């Protein structure tokens, strides 16, 4: 019987600072067999541990088509994330997973795609954006809307600039508060909707960000005619075990770690408590 609580060891290949408190880590599993077997779906997550300090769930942020190494983006906020930030390339961490349902990639083929991301909410969506761009012709219109508190809070600044220039995608970016160098939009991400969202027909929209942003995004999307089944999000909970056993991430009769973290708003609306 395999042990669902025993981590695989992974080596930090490289790190990349995204903002003043957020860093992307690239890992590779050190056991060759585990490395070869490692596959993940967009939207799945890992339980990553600094051994002896703690373990926490992180959404996979890199392209599942290239699973030899994989990335997560981590903001230093608590004991575990600070311990991970203290690690350098070459250091080892514990990895369990991938866990969770992930996005059903094939179901979105033939549709127009909209991403609405706020702050580090872009990280788990990136695991879906990148493989969709690999198969760009399978989708119709492709729109990415990204909001951050300030220009300094934007993650993947290099990649954002590339997306901005790509002819095959439409891209909108905004910050809540600008600075002297910022020439772009100022305002919350929903202020981009009237300018850039063309239709709700045959369109699926992915929303991920802080709870307050999600709440207002849903209100505005509903006004534009998006049905709850076409609004997709990833729920956040403190998933301790990641395998539906510890009980911490339960919402109603769903366990975010095994039934989610990807849910449509139709599913979320049926839950008997606030999501």
């Amino acid at each position, binding site marked *: *019987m*395999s*042990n*669902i*609580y*025993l*981590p695989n*060891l992974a080596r930090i290949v490289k790190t990349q600072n995204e903002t003043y408190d957020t860093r992307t880590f690239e890992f590779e599993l050190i056991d060759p067999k585990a490395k070869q077997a490692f596959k993940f779906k967009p939207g799945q997550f890992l339980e990553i*541990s600094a*051994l*002896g*300090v*703690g*373990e*926490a769930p992180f959404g996979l942020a890199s392209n599942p088509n290239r699973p030899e190494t994989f990335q997560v983006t981590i903001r230093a*906020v*608590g004991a*575990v*994330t600070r311990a991970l930030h203290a690690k350098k390339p*070459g250091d*080892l961490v514990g990895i369990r997973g991938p866990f969770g349902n992930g996005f059903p990639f094939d179901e979105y083929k033939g549709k127009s795609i909209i991403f609405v991301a706020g702050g580090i909410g872009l990280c788990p969506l990136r695991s879906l954006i990148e493989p969709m761009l690999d198969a760009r012709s399978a989708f119709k219109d492709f729109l990415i809307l990204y909001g951050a508190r300030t220009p300094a809070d934007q993650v993947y600044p290099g990649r954002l600039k590339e997306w901005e220039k790509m002819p095959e995608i439409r891209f909108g970016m905004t910050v809540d508060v600008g600075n002297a160098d910022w020439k772009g939009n100022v305002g919350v991400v929903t202020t981009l909707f009237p300018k850039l969202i063309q239709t709700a027909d045959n369109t699926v929209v992915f929303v991920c960000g802080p*709870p307050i942003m999600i709440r207002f995004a849903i209100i505005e999307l509903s006004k534009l005619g998006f049905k709850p089944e076409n609004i997709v999000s990833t729920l*956040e*909970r*403190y998933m*301790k*075990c990641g*395998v*539906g*056993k*510890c*009980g*911490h991430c*339960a*919402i*109603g*009769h769903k366990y975010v770690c*095994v039934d989610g973290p990807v849910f449509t708003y139709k599913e979320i609306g049926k839950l*008997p*408590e*606030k*999501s």
Partner: protein
Amino acid sequence: MDRYIIRKDDLNRWVEALARTQEVFAPTRVEKEIFFAPAPAGIDLNLLSGTAALPYLPAKDLVLPHSENLFHFAKKGGDYELTVPEDKKTAVVLGIRSCDTSGIFWLDKFYQENLSDCYYWQRRNNLTLVTMACNQPGKNCFCVCCEGGPFLDSERDEFDIQLVDLQDSYLVECKSSKGKALIEANSKLFAKADPSAVKTREALEDKSRKSFPPEPTSYMSTAIRRITSNAVTPETWTELGEKCFDCGGCAFVCPCCSCFGVGYLNEGEQGCHYRFWDSCDYSGFTREVSGHNPRGEKGERFKRRFFHKLSYQYLKRDGRIGCVGCGRCITACPGEVSMPAVVERLRK
């Protein structure tokens, strides 16, 4: 299913024989309380049946200990060595009541589905349950409302062996291969049961079912319906939640509660990750490092606990409600918001 008779005088001979190859746990008096404890010197037959009080804690810690190491790590040069503790001891629990047996079979289902929990199963596979049917329910018992007892039904319930106290002897009902092994190794102590013993058993079960006290007998179906349809107002949950002391006692004494937290120990170059009993009553149970807490309010936590135990959504998922009617939460709760008290409040 096979049925045998064992004389009361022979019961401790059986225990003695079983104890030669494995640990035998039985209800044991420790000062004023009764616990499941190893009984190497034979078991107290007075604590086994009749109206003897239930052990203060269910036997769930034999499959899910209060805390256990998940793995140990040690730094070896630039690498880590991870080792997993093994627990290969075999054990028998003799005198577990039907409610607690139902609780363990409920846990079995939970720890099997989705991804199987190998720590749970290495102990569970080595554990055999010899259940004592209850001829006389205790003052806090309401298993009859929860399909938790007072007798296990060979067609409805899973069990290894069930004993029924027939005064001079015990009727021995054996359902599983694990149970069969305990009897076959000591076959001289067992005689085939005749039909009159089975008749007596049926009369005893009937009498037991009819002798439950009117309180705390619970109207579970009303509570299930109201919780399932989300018809209980937030004000009612808040009112109930305000009586809760957040002590977690109900969860720890509950045969069905199995939520756990994970802790981490670091002693220089080595340490371990371990898990421990946790409770959804605690405000920290869902608190995230950002400070955001989806169930920061007491009423919401209280709703969560009873939604998990009584909603049809969970009943469908788990095959039964998450309460076996043992009544331990009545003893444990300082706020008088045990299962029967809550069910009664929701009915009104």
